[in-house]
């Protein structure tokens, strides 16, 4: 870009804060280009699939797309602030230049240029009977600037963690103001309000030599003609048009996928307010641990909610276990089940739309020889898919899988939530005993909260062969696992291997597991941490 003083010429004598405004504008161009890319999840899923064949590490970077989106957003906010402050100063200088009507004042002389033809002027404020606020509201740059800054502020305040976690809809709908933001951004430079000395004028009026003799410009023998200024053509659209097109394609893909017919084949109501929906869609193909977005038009036309798939790829349907916690899930329950106890006719079930499936870290499970799966509460759902797939591959088809040993930890606060998953574990247990492969899967269930009455019951049934809660042979453990001990025993049992650690749970657990992974990764055993969180 070169030296601004050399390029813009005499502008710098009026627009003192020009570089302070141009620099963040350049950064804003770049950041606004980047911000749309991490949220094109279909594109990312596609990239992830293609890259995964070459490099697992590279594919994993794509899992942190939302973090990247947030970081770029912070940068946009920061640069916007600097840009606005710089232009506040610039407008003040513009106004100053018009108000100090003194021919021996260079800024005033420069401001008078172009008053005749209204084309070659420098100062966008053309008279002294106005004020910066009015000028701002009467220029394209000013109006678009205000509009996009307001949109940005509303987007930011509704994206605060408190609002996002509690009222996702407010966050999601307000975020669509980004359309206003991008449209305004593209048109922001169309008024060509920031002007520099034209190339032709720089020849006839060289700033270094002529700036001092401004009173003689245009006069005979001065060697300096009257300078002419013009605005630069708008550049921003060149930066953002590509990502905007990609994002439009992304929304079209989502729209198309949403309109493919989805059929609910079975609805199961589990205890602990969990609804299982088994569905089919033509051409649907999934991998383990993926998730989909589900929309139910009869409940809400605009809401899409993510759910992990709990079925294995080997099954002929796909399923999701939905916990009934909020308005949307309750309404979905009413639509699918309601209070009916008789079997429903298939056509009475509501129409659904599915977007996905989208990949997450759990896809990588089968690429590790030894795997530790940790699920906390409802976070166990992706692992349901993995365990089922394991069962199908190893037991039924007797395929050779790369994964030799799975350690599964489930941390759960209440006993009722065990039911549907316990059935799965029970059938797995039975099948494995039948086939004699008992040491492939080792699972530990931790009950982190219990009531006094339950504790008495456990004490009494301590000697029973099957666990009183789950009915499994493996006894339920109480409290939280001693991770240090677990990691050490796994490290000693499997020297020289890469152990994949997969977590779906709260961030604090993630942090402590990450620390454990780092501290127990010695020369021969490496623990590689993968975290999935919505």
């Amino acid at each position: 870009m070169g030296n601004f003083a050399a390029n813009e010429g005499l502008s710098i004598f009026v627009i003192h804060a020009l570089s302070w405004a141009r620099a963040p504008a350049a950064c804003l161009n770049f950041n606004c280009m980047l911000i749309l890319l991490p949220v094109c999840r279909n594109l990312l899923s596609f990239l992830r699939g293609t890259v995964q064949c070459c490099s697992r590490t590279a594919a994993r970077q794509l899992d942190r797309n939302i973090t990247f989106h947030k970081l770029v957003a912070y940068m946009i906010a920061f640069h916007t602030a600097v840009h606005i402050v710089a232009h506040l100063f610039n407008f003040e200088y513009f106004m100053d230049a018009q108000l100090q009507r003194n021919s021996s004042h260079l800024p005033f002389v420069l401001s008078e240029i172009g008053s005749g033809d209204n084309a070659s002027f420098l100062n966008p404020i053309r008279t002294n009977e106005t004020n910066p606020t009015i000028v701002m509201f009467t220029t394209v740059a000013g109006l678009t600037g205000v509009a996009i800054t307001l949109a940005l502020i509303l987007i930011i305040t509704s994206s605060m963690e408190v609002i996002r976690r509690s009222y996702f809809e407010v966050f999601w709908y307000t975020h669509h103001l980004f359309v206003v933001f991008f449209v305004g951004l593209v048109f922001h430079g169309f008024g060509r309000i920031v002007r520099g000395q034209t190339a032709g004028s720089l020849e006839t009026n060289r700033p270094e030599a002529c700036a001092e003799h401004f009173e003689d410009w245009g006069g005979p023998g001065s060697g300096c003609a009257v300078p002419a200024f013009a605005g630069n053509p708008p550049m921003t659209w060149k930066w953002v048009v590509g990502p905007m097109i990609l994002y439009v394609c992304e929304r079209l893909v989502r729209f198309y996928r949403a309109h493919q017919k989805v059929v609910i084949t079975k609805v199961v109501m589990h205890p602990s307010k969990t609804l299982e929906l088994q569905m089919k869609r033509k051409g649907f193909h999934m991998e383990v641990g993926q998730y989909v977005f589900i929309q139910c038009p009869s409940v809400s036309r605009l809401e899409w909610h993510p759910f992990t798939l709990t079925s294995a790829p080997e099954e002929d349907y796909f399923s999701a276990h939905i916990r009934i916690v909020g308005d949307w899930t309750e309404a979905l329950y009413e639509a699918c089940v309601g209070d009916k106890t008789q079997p429903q006719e298939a056509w009475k079930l509501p129409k659904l739309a599915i977007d996905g499936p989208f990949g997450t870290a759990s896809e990588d499970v089968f690429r590790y020889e030894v795997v530790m799966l940790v699920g906390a509460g409802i976070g166990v759902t992706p692992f349901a898919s993995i365990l089922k797939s394991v069962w199908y591959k190893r037991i039924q088809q007797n395929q050779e899988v790369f994964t030799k040993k799975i350690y599964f930890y489930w941390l759960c606060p209440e006993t009722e939530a065990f039911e549907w998953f316990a059935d799965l574990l029970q059938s797995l247990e039975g099948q494995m005993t039948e086939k004699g492969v008992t040491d492939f899967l080792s699972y530990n269930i931790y009950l982190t909260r219990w009531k006094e009455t339950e504790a008495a019951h456990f004490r009494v049934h301590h000697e029973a062969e099957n666990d009183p809660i789950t009915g499994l042979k493996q006894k339920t453990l109480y409290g939280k696992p001693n991770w240090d001990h677990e990691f050490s025993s796994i490290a000693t049992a499997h020297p020289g291997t890469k152990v994949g650690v997969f977590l779906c749970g709260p961030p604090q657990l993630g942090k402590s597991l990450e620390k454990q992974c780092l501290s127990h990764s010695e020369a021969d055993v490496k623990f590689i941490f993968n975290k999935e969180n919505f």
Partner: protein
Amino acid sequence: MGKIEWAMWANEQALASGLILLTGGIVGVAGQFRGWQFAAYAIAAGVFVCLLEYPRSKRAKGTSVERTGQYCFTVCVKSFGPLTRNYYVRAFLHAAICVPGGFMLATVLGCVCLGIASIIYLAAAIRGEHWEPIVPRKDTVRPPPADIKNPPQNPPPRPPPETRRKRVEDLEGAAYDNPIPVKD
């Protein structure tokens, strides 16, 4: 759209507006712009709005997350009683505060943002929300005795297996069967 408490968003928006007013005011005064008196007013207004909006209200439903160190601000705001409890008052107060900011370019943005916050507060007030202070919980959790650090490493002592007879036919009754008599 679910049972959203609009006041929560209004609070975030108002706090952001306070900061923007403050920044605009500082720029106006530091740069000695024309109309710097409005900028000076904006500094004062910005600080006032930030102090008023910093303490989060307790939510009607769900867990409330405090801002760091908000307790002293909660006490101050609480002491104004119905003036700060009622969101109609806040809506009109913010609308009134924001007006002088519109007279100077540096503070115009803060003015508009605060106006938007005022509208959201009005929506919250119409829905019947009000500000509740978050007070710290009075029930102090008893700290565990100092010597409880680790769970026991060994199982409890048990009599040898012969005396430990498992009556599988009556598990409930077996619970009260002490193989070794308990002595005082």
